[in-house]
């Protein structure tokens, strides 16, 4: 029962986007009406004549080889049209990058189907039939026998001397060096990684007995500064182990897909986090030319990183459709999604941290290993180190880590990959240090938090990279004020009856943007502006929001603007994927550049028609006109002239630096009006990050171990606000995604059979509406980032770590430091530890 509306935080509503017409203002997104009336069509809502349904046969074993397979009985059933097995999959294709580099396909990477399943639930084959009922019956008529192989679901098990290997040839990826560049030739790509075996000694495992993460050899390591000296000078040194959970992304829309072939082209309907970038992915998986792929993805039911370029499983209906010569719908069930859908890797972390007496982190020794699943290595392990080094600005730091393969479902980036884990491993230590040093929790974070062009990570070419900007300290201060931090800290008593309250604060940050993508718009002869958007429509609304920046630059009222999205056949530009919070930053830059290109062309057209130089003209209020009054024309007229003029004005010629996909789209749209297409070439000094200060209060019942989150506030430093409502949705939504990691989300596995037990929501526990306060608070600084023309940074990931860590810190504030060593924290953890007076939960065991 949420007590949220008692004792909530009262706030004065902030006004965003001062001095702007559209940027920072609320509006109704163009996709909302369809959503609210149920007309919005997600992949599974499409139907095709004679559509077949397909069902998958999943491996019951965590690692095995198919010994015997007999599908005759299934094929003989009336209504069964085709069966697809792994040997019918096209060979993995190499990737040709835009600069001509060929990236070799990794033969050991994941494929849609396999005869050597590497995790329980991995698809072996698929059956297409007239309906799901028949397809399911057919699956049960298939005789299949497996040869069990050694398996590991716990990264520590496979690291032990003589421990089982999750893959026949080892338990880690080994990357051999990139060959030297040849003059004239395109830059060489690193060869595909191979698999090796990493084992630690019994001696190195000694620590595990005491619940401390053993620290053996790791392939990756970096450092800056002198940590040994730091530890010597430190007033307090803490050495703590913390384990974060494996959590499925669980978007409510599973990765269902409909596919059919027409005129040699494959049409795929599926959810994705990028319309533009999923097309080449599909082409690669099917090993066909990009021009042969049409992707329809108008609406995507959530992604959180699991659908960055959709999922390789979509080739199953595509290939079955070819085989059965009929459209095939693959409805992925929730259980199937739990297996083939993605998940965040658990990180086991051990931190040795040296604090000065004022709380400054002068030395940090970080050690992490991840539970990666059997396929490609995720960036979580290396990223965790870089994020921690930026967010807490240690004077000296060493980072070591290794990504361990296991026989559990494949992982992928999940909102703040590595960031959440790094922050969640680090924050409880800072909270503990503050208590030991007698410092205020906000104060200790103030002295460590990044500011301005804050450096991060190790030196690259003799210099540490740094952020474009950071105003986190201001967010922290304003947040503390709005949350009434000091009042809550001072409030007594902390305990009434069996209830104890605690407050927690956490810093958080993540990458906030990339650069170098394209924008594309057409000013139509009717004066309307059409923005082409290659962004995926997964609910962040950036698919539409970012173009408000373009409209603002062009001085066009939003009512006169249209956005085209969700169908790769509709001539979309080269766009970033909506992952890593890059979209708002990258695509507002592209939109801005494109709008500037349009302005320039408008002025040139005006100069051509009305005389004078382009620079004598200005663009505003749907007109291009002579500065200081006089002759001018409407955008509608300018568009007509553009068509007459042709060439660069209507898209028959486009700038050479555009991506080939953008060029192709421009060519297709040429002649429809004034076509503007531009690449984001704006300079950027530093790497873009966004930041959040998170505050929370919890109320724990020490007799039941049950706790409620009483209040929550996230204060964001994400540059200029583009669309307050969708920003607020992101800030709080991703905060709760993080909170889920604190209050219950997890995987449970049976170690003997290597089988997942938590395949249902009531077992894996995504947060419900009653698990969070009924009125959560958010605010943003709205300080523009100096390194991007629109000033906006991304927001998706930064709130996640803070959401989780602030809850954990509030819990330790209420209960002390001797309760938990891993997340999530539930009644069982709290009660057993309170009984024993020390952390009782098996600290290192995976999937409990």
């Amino acid at each position: 029962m949420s007590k949220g509306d008692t004792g909530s935080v009262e706030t004065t509503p902030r006004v965003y986007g001062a001095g702007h017409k559209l940027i920072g203002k609320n509006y109704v997104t163009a996709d909302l009406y369809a959503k609210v009336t149920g007309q919005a069509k997600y992949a599974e809502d499409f139907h095709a004549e004679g559509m077949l349904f397909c069902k998958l046969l999943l491996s019951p074993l965590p690692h095995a080889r198919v010994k015997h397979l007999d599908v005759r009985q299934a094929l003989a059933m009336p209504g069964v049209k085709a069966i697809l097995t792994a040997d019918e999959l096209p060979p993995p294709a190499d990737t040709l990058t835009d600069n001509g580099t060929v990236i070799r396909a990794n033969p050991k990477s994941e494929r849609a189907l396999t005869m050597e399943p590497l995790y329980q639930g991995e698809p072996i084959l698929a059956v297409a039939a007239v309906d799901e009922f028949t397809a399911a019956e057919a699956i049960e008529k298939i005789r299949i026998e497996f040869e069990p192989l050694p398996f590991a679901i716990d990264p520590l098990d496979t690291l032990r001397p003589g421990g089982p290997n999750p893959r026949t040839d080892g338990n880690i990826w080994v990357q051999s060096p990139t060959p030297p560049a040849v003059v004239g030739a395109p830059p060489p790509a690193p060869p595909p990684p191979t698999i090796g075996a990493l084992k630690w000694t019994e001696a190195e495992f000694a620590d595990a007995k005491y619940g401390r993460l053993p620290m053996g050899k790791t392939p990756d390591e970096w450092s800056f500064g002198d940590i040994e000296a730091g530890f010597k000078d430190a007033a307090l040194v803490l050495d703590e182990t913390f384990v974060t959970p494996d959590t499925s992304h669980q978007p409510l829309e599973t990765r269902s897909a409909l596919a059919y072939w027409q005129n040699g082209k494959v049409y795929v309907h599926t959810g994705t986090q990028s319309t533009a970038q999923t097309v080449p992915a599909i082409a690669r998986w099917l090993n066909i030319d990009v021009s042969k792929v049409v992707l329809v993805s108008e609406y995507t039911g959530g992604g959180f990183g699991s659908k960055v370029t959709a999922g390789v499983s979509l080739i199953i209906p595509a290939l079955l459709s070819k085989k059965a010569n009929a459209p095939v719908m693959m409805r992925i069930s929730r259980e199937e999604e739990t297996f083939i859908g993605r998940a965040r890797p658990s990180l086991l972390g051990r931190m040795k941290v040296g604090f000065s007496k004022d709380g400054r982190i002068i030395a940090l020794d970080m050690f992490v290993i991840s539970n990666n699943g059997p396929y490609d290595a995720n960036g979580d392990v290396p990223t965790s180190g870089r994020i921690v080094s930026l967010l807490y600005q240690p004077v000296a730091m060493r980072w070591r880590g290794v990504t361990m393969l296991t026989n559990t479902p494949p992982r992928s980036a999940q909102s703040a990959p590595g960031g959440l884990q790094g922050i969640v491993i680090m924050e409880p230590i800072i909270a503990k240090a503050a208590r030991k040093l007698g410092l205020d929790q906000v104060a200790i974070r103030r002295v460590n938090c990044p500011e301005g062009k804050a450096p991060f990570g190790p030196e690259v070419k003799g210099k540490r990279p740094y952020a474009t900007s950071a105003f986190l300290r201001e967010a922290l201060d304003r947040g503390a004020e709005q949350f009434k931090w000091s009042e809550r800290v001072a409030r007594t008593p902390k305990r009434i009856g069996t209830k104890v309250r605690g407050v927690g604060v956490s810093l958080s940050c993540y990458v906030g943007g990339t650069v170098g993508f394209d924008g594309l718009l057409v000013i139509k002869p009717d004066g309307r502006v059409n923005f082409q958007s290659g962004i995926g429509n997964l609910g962040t609304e950036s698919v539409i929001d970012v173009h408000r920046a373009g409209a603002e630059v062009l001085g066009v009222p939003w009512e006169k603007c249209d956005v085209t999205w969700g169908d790769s056949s509709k001539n979309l530009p080269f766009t970033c994927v909506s992952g890593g919070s890059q979209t708002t930053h990258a695509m507002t830059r592209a939109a801005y550049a494109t709008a500037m290109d349009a302005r320039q062309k408008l002025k040139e057209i005006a100069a051509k028609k009305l005389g004078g130089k382009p620079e004598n003209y200005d663009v505003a209020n749907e007109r291009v006109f002579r500065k200081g009054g006089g002759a001018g024309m409407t955008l509608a007229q300018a568009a007509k002239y553009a068509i007459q003029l042709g060439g660069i004005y209507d898209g028959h010629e486009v700038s050479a630096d555009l991506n080939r996909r953008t060029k192709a789209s421009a060519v297709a749209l040429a002649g429809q009006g004034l076509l503007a297409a531009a690449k984001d070439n704006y300079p950027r000094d530093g790497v873009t990050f966004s930041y959040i200060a998170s505050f929370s209060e919890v109320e724990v019942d020490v007799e039941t171990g049950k706790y409620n989150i009483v209040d929550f506030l996230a204060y964001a430093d994400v540059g200029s606000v583009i669309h307050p409502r969708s920003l607020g949705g992101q800030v709080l939504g991703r905060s709760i995604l993080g909170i889920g990691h604190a209050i219950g989300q997890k995987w449970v596995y049976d170690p003997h059979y290597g089988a997942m037990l938590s395949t249902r929501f009531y077992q894996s526990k995504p947060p419900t509406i009653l698990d969070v306060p009924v009125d959560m608070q958010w605010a943003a600084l709205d300080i523009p980032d100096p390194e991007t023309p629109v000033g906006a940074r991304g927001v998706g990931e930064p709130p996640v770590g803070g959401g989780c860590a602030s809850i954990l810190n509030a819990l330790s504030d209420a209960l002390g430091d001797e309760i938990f060593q891993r997340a999530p924290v539930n009644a069982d953890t709290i009660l057993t530890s309170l009984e024993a007076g020390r952390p009782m939960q098996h600290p290192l065991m995976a999937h409990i």
Partner: protein
Amino acid sequence: MDLLEWARNPWGQNIPIHIAWFLIWVAAIAGLLFLMVHATYIRYFAKARAFANTDSPVVAARIPEHVPRHSLTARMFRWVMAASMFTLLFTAFLPKVGFQFDWVTYHWIAGSVLTVSILFHIIHASFFMDFWSIWPDRIDLRDAGRRILRFVGKPAPPPDRFAKYPLENKLYHGAIIAAGLSSIVTGVFMMFRVRTIFFPRNPYLFNDMTWGLMYVLHGLAGVGLISLIMAHVYFGLRPEKRAITKSMISGWMSRDFYLKEHDPARWPVETSAPPARSQGARTEGLTDAG
């Protein structure tokens, strides 16, 4: 109709989990049929049985009035074993036929008692008793042959009298050893699957298939014992066998019965010089209860 019940283990492999319970009835009915057939045969068709009598009166005279047959320890073991065996059978099979009660505890306790008593018996029989007295010897086999020939009406010399135990008795003991030991050995391992005072629960001692077969063997031995014990009780109650049954309580049998059924040469009961063997006259004996 499947004699075993199968299941699909978590890895989708088919494994037997136990026998089909209808075999309980099959065993019971088989036992019953045997009794009926045997009783009818004895009552109406059995031929008179003859032994070659070789005793000189001298020998007979040396036989005590009460021929000692079972020592006290042997008898105690025997009845403890009987009690635990019955407990095991009832706790095992009554729930399966609809009488539900908290059976597992009684079952494993009785099982433990049986196991201990059997261990004792093996040691006792091997070192403190005439171990071979319960195993068929050459004469048993020869006489078995002779009896069959006579049964089918072919000419054959009459068989000798029995040693301490009639051949049927020996064969029965063999069957009990087979069924009993298999249920005991499997039963001991099965105790790893339930909570007992002996060892921590660990169902993963063997792989699923081995466990499955173990449960099947336990079940088969169990239902086997149903028929065997039915037959055993039946014989125990038959009039011509009463003397033997009684001796299992009192420990001795009468000289007359001894001399009728047993060959002092093969089962000497007095320590003086071995009796001289001689061929000669014959006496009508009891019907053969084979």
